[in-house]
C-alpha cells in the first residue's frame, strides 16, 4: 500500500501531464518501481504517464532510439549480445523488476548505482524531453532533470565499455566505470553522490576529477575506490586481463 496517495491522474497528453505535475505532492509515474518501494509519504497525486510513452526500440541505419517506456528487460533482451544489454541486465539483478522498471524512470531517478545510467552517460545519449509545452533535445550529461523523458537516441557505432565492482555479482556495485574509446570520456558511478565525468589523460587528473565523489564507507575508503577506478581505466586503455 501507498497510503498517502489520494489521486491518480491519467492525462491524455504529455502537455497535460506536465501541467498536472506542479506541486511537491505530485509525481510522474512510469514503471515506477522505485516510487512504489519508497512510498514517499508526501506524495498525494500520481500522474501516470505509462500510456503516453513509447515502449518500442527502433534501430535505424545509424541510430538507435529507445522509447522511455521500454523496460530494462526489453533492453537486456534486444541488446543481448552487447554491452548495452549486459548493463541493462546488471542494473537490476531481479528479472521480475527488470520487467517492471522502465528506462525513462531509470534515467529520471539519476541513480549512480545503475550500470545502464553510467553507460548511457558514457555514450552521452540524446534525450527527447518534454519541458513545459515543448519537446527539446538534450544530451543526458547536460540534462537538468526537469521535464518528462520521452525517448533516448544514440549513434549505433558507440565504442564503449563498462566495468563494475561489487563484493558479489548481485550486490550493488561500489564503483562503476564507463569508458568511451572514441572520446576517451570516462564516467564514474557506483556508491557515489553524483556521476563523475572526465577525459582520461593522466592519473593525477583522475584524483582531481573524483574529488568529493566517494565517501569512506563499509565498501571501502575513498582511497581504495579511486584506486579501483584507476585499475579500470588502466584495463580499458591497456587491455583487460
Amino acid at each position, binding site marked *: *500500500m*501507498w*497510503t*498517502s*496517495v*489520494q*489521486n*491518480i491522474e*491519467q492525462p491524455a497528453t504529455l502537455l497535460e501531464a506536465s501541467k498536472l505535475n506542479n506541486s511537491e505532492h505530485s509525481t510522474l*509515474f512510469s514503471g*515506477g*518501481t522505485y516510487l*512504489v*518501494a519508497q*512510498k514517499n509519504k508526501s506524495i498525494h497525486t*500520481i500522474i*501516470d504517464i*505509462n500510456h503516453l510513452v513509447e515502449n518500442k526500440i527502433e534501430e535505424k541505419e545509424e541510430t538507435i532510439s529507445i522509447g522511455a517506456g521500454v523496460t530494462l*528487460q526489453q533492453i537486456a533482451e534486444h541488446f543481448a549480445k552487447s554491452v548495452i544489454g549486459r548493463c541493462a*541486465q546488471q542494473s537490476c*539483478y*531481479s*528479472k*521480475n*523488476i527488470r*520487467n*517492471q522498471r522502465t528506462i525513462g524512470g531509470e534515467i529520471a531517478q539519476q541513480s549512480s548505482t545503475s550500470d545502464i545510467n553510467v553507460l548511457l552517460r558514457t555514450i552521452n545519449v540524446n534525450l527527447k524531453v518534454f519541458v513545459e509545452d515543448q519537446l527539446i533535445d538534450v544530451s543526458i550529461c547536460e540534462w537538468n532533470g526537469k521535464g518528462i523523458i520521452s525517448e533516448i537516441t544514440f549513434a549505433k557505432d558507440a565504442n564503449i565499455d563498462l566495468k563494475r565492482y561489487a563484493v558479489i555479482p*548481485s550486490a550493488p556495485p561500489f564503483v562503476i566505470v564507463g569508458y568511451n574509446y572514441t572520446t576517451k570520456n570516462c564516467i564514474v558511478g557506483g556508491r557515489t553522490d553524483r556521476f563523475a565525468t572526465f577525459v582520461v589523460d593522466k592519473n593525477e587528473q583522475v584524483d582531481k576529477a573524483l574529488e568529493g565523489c566517494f565517501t569512506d564507507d563499509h565498501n571501502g575508503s575513498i582511497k581504495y575506490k579511486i584506486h579501483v577506478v584507476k585499475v579500470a581505466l588502466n584495463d580499458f586503455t591497456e587491455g583487460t586481463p
Partner: protein
Amino acid sequence: MKIAFTLNGQETKAEFTPGETLFHYLRSDEIYSVKNGCELGECGACTVLVDNKAQNSCLILMHTLEGTVVETIENLGSKSNLHHLQQKFIDEGAVQCGYCTPGMILASEALLRESEQPTSEQVKDALAGNLCRCTGYVKPIKAVCNE
C-alpha cells in the same frame, strides 16, 4: 477506483483505493500464496505473472492493471492437480520452508513460457530476484533445468 482484469482465469472487476498495490489486493482477497518478504521489490516472495511476465506484486499499483492477465500459483495447479513444475519442485527437494516457493515457481514458469529449454544461466537469471534462504538455490535450479 475500478478496473477490469483477468485474475486466475476469471474476469474480475476490482475496486480499490488509489495507492493500493496488487500484493495488498490479492492478500485482502485471501489469495495468500503471494507472500510478504519485504514489500520493497527485493525478495520476490510476492511474485505474480502479469501478461506472462514475472513481476513483484508489491510494486504494482492496481490502477495499472486494466485489461491485463494476472496469475498466481493457484492458476498453475491445485492440490489435486499439480502443475508439472510444482511436482518437480517436490521431487527434487527444491522446497524447504516453502515461503519463497510459489514465487519461485511462477518466475520459473514465466521463463519456460519464453523458452522451452532454457540454459542454466537463463534459469539463474530468471530466479535471481527470488530470494531463498533455505536451499542455496541448488535444488530449485535443478528442478527448473531438468524440466
